[in-house]
């Protein structure tokens, strides 16, 4: 058992909350909250690009991230998310168009990249953009165990602890920690579709353990998306379609 600052287990996610269609101008929007990390996502599209010369055979996915974090890490997140979303959106169905995803970090308390992805996917579902699959991201923080603790704790012989969905204080605690964000398809949780590593790096065994942790934890997110959509649809039925 690990003492985490918010009393969670090593393998439990923070409480989730999702509000769809919160913005009126956007085709789809979502306010995603994971613990104290809040992200607002807006999706515009598929629409014609402003410059006709930029039309391509498949839909162009453009991701814009506004956040208080450093430009360097934001440009990496942007590049990563653009590729993940481009792979999951059915781009062949919308030639010569652009899908623009605008992500605004409202509050950040760890695991920001996963929240950005989940908010983006929720907004895409809200906008009704055709998706080939739903990508789910899991953040694992690997902490080097102290030598004496390793001998006492015989349940894991890895020498590291894996914490799921870390908060900012856990992430920034030590320089030698590594953080791995894994993206999987919700229908095939054991196969990785994306990976992003921050920090000193891990061995292959630790990476594969993170893959197992991610496979166990990932079904929670699609279940939550489904819940958010059901709430939105029932609410719309009551307000828009009531007699």
């Amino acid at each position, binding site marked *: 058992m690990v003492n985490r600052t918010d009393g969670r287990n090593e393998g439990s996610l923070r409480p989730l909350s999702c509000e769809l269609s919160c913005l009126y101008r956007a085709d789809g929007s979502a306010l995603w909250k994971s613990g104290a990390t809040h992200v607002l996502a807006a999706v515009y599209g598929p629409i014609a690009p402003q410059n006709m010369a930029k039309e391509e055979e498949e839909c162009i996915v453009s991701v814009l991230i506004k956040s208080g974090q450093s430009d360097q890490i934001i440009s990496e997140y942007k590049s990563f998310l653009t590729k993940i979303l481009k792979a999951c959106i059915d781009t062949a169905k919308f030639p010569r168009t652009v899908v623009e995803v605008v992500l605004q970090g409202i509050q950040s308390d760890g695991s920001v990249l996963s929240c950005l992805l989940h908010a983006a996917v929720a907004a895409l579902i809200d906008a009704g953009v055709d998706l080939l699959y739903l990508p789910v991201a899991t953040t694992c923080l690997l902490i080097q165990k102290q030598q004496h603790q390793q001998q006492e704790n015989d349940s894991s012989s890895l020498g590291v602890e894996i914490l799921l969905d870390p908060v900012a204080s856990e992430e920034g605690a030590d320089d030698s920690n590594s953080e791995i964000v894994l993206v999987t398809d919700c229908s095939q949780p054991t196969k*990785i579709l994306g990976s*992003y590593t921050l920090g000193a790096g891990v061995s292959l065994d630790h990476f594969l353990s993170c893959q197992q942790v991610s496979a166990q934890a990932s079904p929670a997110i699609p279940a939550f998306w489904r819940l958010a959509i059901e709430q939105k649809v029932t609410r719309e039925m009551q307000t828009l379609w009531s007699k």
Partner: protein
Amino acid sequence: MEIDESNYGDYDLKTWLNFPQSSNWIQSLDPKAYVLAFWDQNTRPDGRMFSQARTTKVVTSLLKHSAGSALVKQGETKVMAAISIEIGQPTPELPDHGDIMVTVTTPDPRGRADRLQSWLQRMLDELLPRSLNLMSGKACIRLVTSVMILQDSGNLMDAALLACMAAWDDTSLPTMDQLQETQGKLWWKENPMTSVVGSNSEKTAREKEYRVSLTMGLLKSKSGKVQFLVDPSLEEAKFTEGQLTIVVSLPSRTLQVEYTGSLGLDAADMALATKLANGRADELSSIL
């Protein structure tokens, strides 16, 4: 070259490729079909095997006014890195760490340099600062690294990181015996660019850490398995179904995995990719 006449009525791409001049216009008319024609036969347009990287050549100490410099040629991709040293005060939060600044310049005006610059900055920031300490809390080294992309023929990440590592290897860092402190300021005892004796022993004394990366493109074979295309060239990179970069830190052999793509990777694929990356690290550690 034998031409099988029974195929004349058949407009299969492979038949057309048997004609000597056809490959150039096929490549410009339908680049994807051109590349796929090679991949289907388990080879690549430049004749390499799937697990073979392009010939890599590293030349160091080219620039006289830089503390360290290196030119890397990986196939047709050419990248040069130059490191110069500044001495300053460390930040109070991290008194034992130095600083690294990376700038990437490219002749291509479309700005692919941003992503490469932030990636290289992160790779070096995670690796080097501890070795840049001079006097805890008072003095540390800042490495100003300039990376110049001379020719982009695919896989800039590997070539740029290798150039930075080779330039780092070439750099001889000043130590406290070359410096003296008077009245709260640090002074060089002798000109660091011309003094050779101290710097040679310094190079062998300090254990330097490195990072070596291997970028692979991903393909789905006919049997549904994932295949890795090591060191994709510019034409190949457009048509792969994913890109996987594994960075191996030496000597600790820890890994950093960056992957985006449409193919799912399971544990066996990761193990194979790691093996390829470690093989590349072994190959390059003889240079560094």
